[in-house]
């Protein structure tokens, strides 16, 4: 970890984080205003008029009765993973692959710091950025809920939900980071670093539709994350451990690969 580099990386990338935070916050507040404990029944009825497959693909299937399941269904099942995923794809690519592709990595590596230090600093930025984005959104959800619907949010399940979504997105960020480290061209690092998470995401949507496509659930990491089950009290330790393992493996793999390889600088 190199502090001046971290600072400069922050200066070059914070705006992206702020934009995603703003978008996610906007959706969060819109969705929260739609929560009405008394008229949940009517909302559910309205959803029943839409095609069942569409509802399932968006992850909105559970029966909504309280605020935590409402957030789990309408926010954490779709928006809270799609936006951070895009954030990870963009930021991971900027942290390593872009510097290698443009050649500015040459300046970083000509300073008296090891490659390991340089690339680890970039990795830490992505970990911190991804986690902070979701932590801030979680805190905002807490604050807004407390203000708008005092006492209605089940804190324990909601915390577990936040923990799991953070672990999931760290695993996704690790995949993006890994591909950012191993390619010379941003073309390829983006193709795979974005392609794989997006493919996971699409497969997950297809698998949720059920029927013929449900076997697809074995091909994506997102299957291991089920917000409705978590708020219903079924926190899967296995999922958490797998996410953590993927995170560690992809970050360490990316860092080690970067440390050893020849760079086209």
């Amino acid at each position, binding site marked *: 970890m*190199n502090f*001046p*580099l971290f*600072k*400069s990386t922050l200066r*070059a990338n914070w705006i992206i984080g702020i934009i995603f935070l703003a978008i996610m916050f906007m959706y969060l507040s819109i969705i929260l205003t739609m929560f009405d404990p008394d008229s949940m029944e009517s909302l559910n009825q309205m959803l029943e008029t839409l095609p069942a497959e569409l509802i399932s693909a968006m992850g909105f299937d559970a029966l909504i009765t309280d605020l935590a399941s409402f957030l789990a269904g309408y926010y954490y099942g779709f928006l809270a993973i799609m936006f951070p995923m895009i954030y990870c794809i963009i930021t991971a690519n900027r942290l390593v692959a872009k510097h290698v592709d*443009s*050649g*500015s990595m*040459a*300046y*970083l*590596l*000509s*300073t*008296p*710091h*090891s*490659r390991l*230090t340089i690339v680890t600093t970039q990795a830490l930025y992505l970990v911190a950025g991804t986690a902070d984005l979701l932590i801030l959104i979680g805190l905002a959800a807490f604050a807004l809920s407390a203000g708008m619907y005092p006492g209605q949010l089940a804190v324990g399940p909601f915390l577990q939900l936040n923990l799991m979504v953070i672990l999931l997105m760290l695993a996704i960020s690790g995949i993006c980071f890994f591909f950012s480290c191993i390619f010379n061209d941003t073309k390829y690092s983006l193709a795979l670093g974005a392609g794989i998470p997006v493919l996971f995401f699409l497969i997950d949507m297809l698998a949720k539709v059920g029927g013929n496509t449900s076997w697809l659930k074995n091909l994506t990491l997102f299957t291991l994350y089920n917000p409705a089950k978590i708020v219903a009290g079924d926190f899967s330790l296995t999922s958490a451990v797998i996410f953590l393992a993927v995170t560690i493996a992809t970050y360490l793999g990316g860092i080690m690969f970067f440390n*050893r*390889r*020849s*760079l*086209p*600088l």
Partner: protein
Amino acid sequence: MIDVKDLTMTYKSGKGVFDLTFSIPEGEVFGYLGPNGAGKTTTIRQLMGFTNADKGTCTIKGLDCRTQSQEVNKHLGYLPGEIAFFDEMTGKQFLSFLQEMRGIRSNARTQKLIERFDLEVTPRIKRMSKGMKQKLAVIAAFMHDPAVYILDEPSSGLDPLMQHIFVDLIHEEKKRGKTVLMSSHNFEEIERTCDRAGIIREGRLVAVEDINSLKAAQRRVFLITVAGPEDIDHIRAGGLELGKVTNNQVEVVVGSDYDAFIKTLGKCRVQGLDVLPQSLEQVFLKYYGQGVH
């Protein structure tokens, strides 16, 4: 100070550098001459520890360039051949970022260099011209007063005045005992600054000689304009090596036989004399001629 031993690194295209061996003692300014694509930058990448060698080693101050680059970089100033900065920064931000990364407190030297090269550091790097970027790269390489400089085509993009300032800077650093490796495809640039030079051709070092013997090996082409065809006949009779001949102009290639050249011209009615610009291969036909390995 800089030691390269049996260094081989092959790209997929078959190009690369092969069995390079040379060393540069402390306090020497070493020119690394070769046409584009000969392997100059490939060698420098190895010295900077960016790429892994197939075979061989390079060390600076006895430290391995690939595995101990962290230590090496404390004593090293680097000017890349293809410069890519952090585009979103201004020149000033970039220099202070490097200063922080290198852990330098005082920016007196940086300030002096900025004044010396007359660089405006407030614009964003993205908006800078090629010449300004080159100046910024020179300052970035010299600002931390390192013991060793590795400069990849340092004066490309600098105007003649700035090139002059740059040459003076190299002379000063040499007086202060610094070691310099400087690549170029232009012999004049090397001639003005270096003590010795290595000549690289298709990835192999074909000669390492001191600058005076290289000067002696240098061939120049003069374009002589004379009054009439009979003068051309005079020149033909002079036993000189001739290039293209037209009605009243003749190209004469001169290696070391300036005396014969001048004496022959003395017999003619010379109306004009120009030195033709030449590529490195033409200047050093001795090293670049066919079949030389």
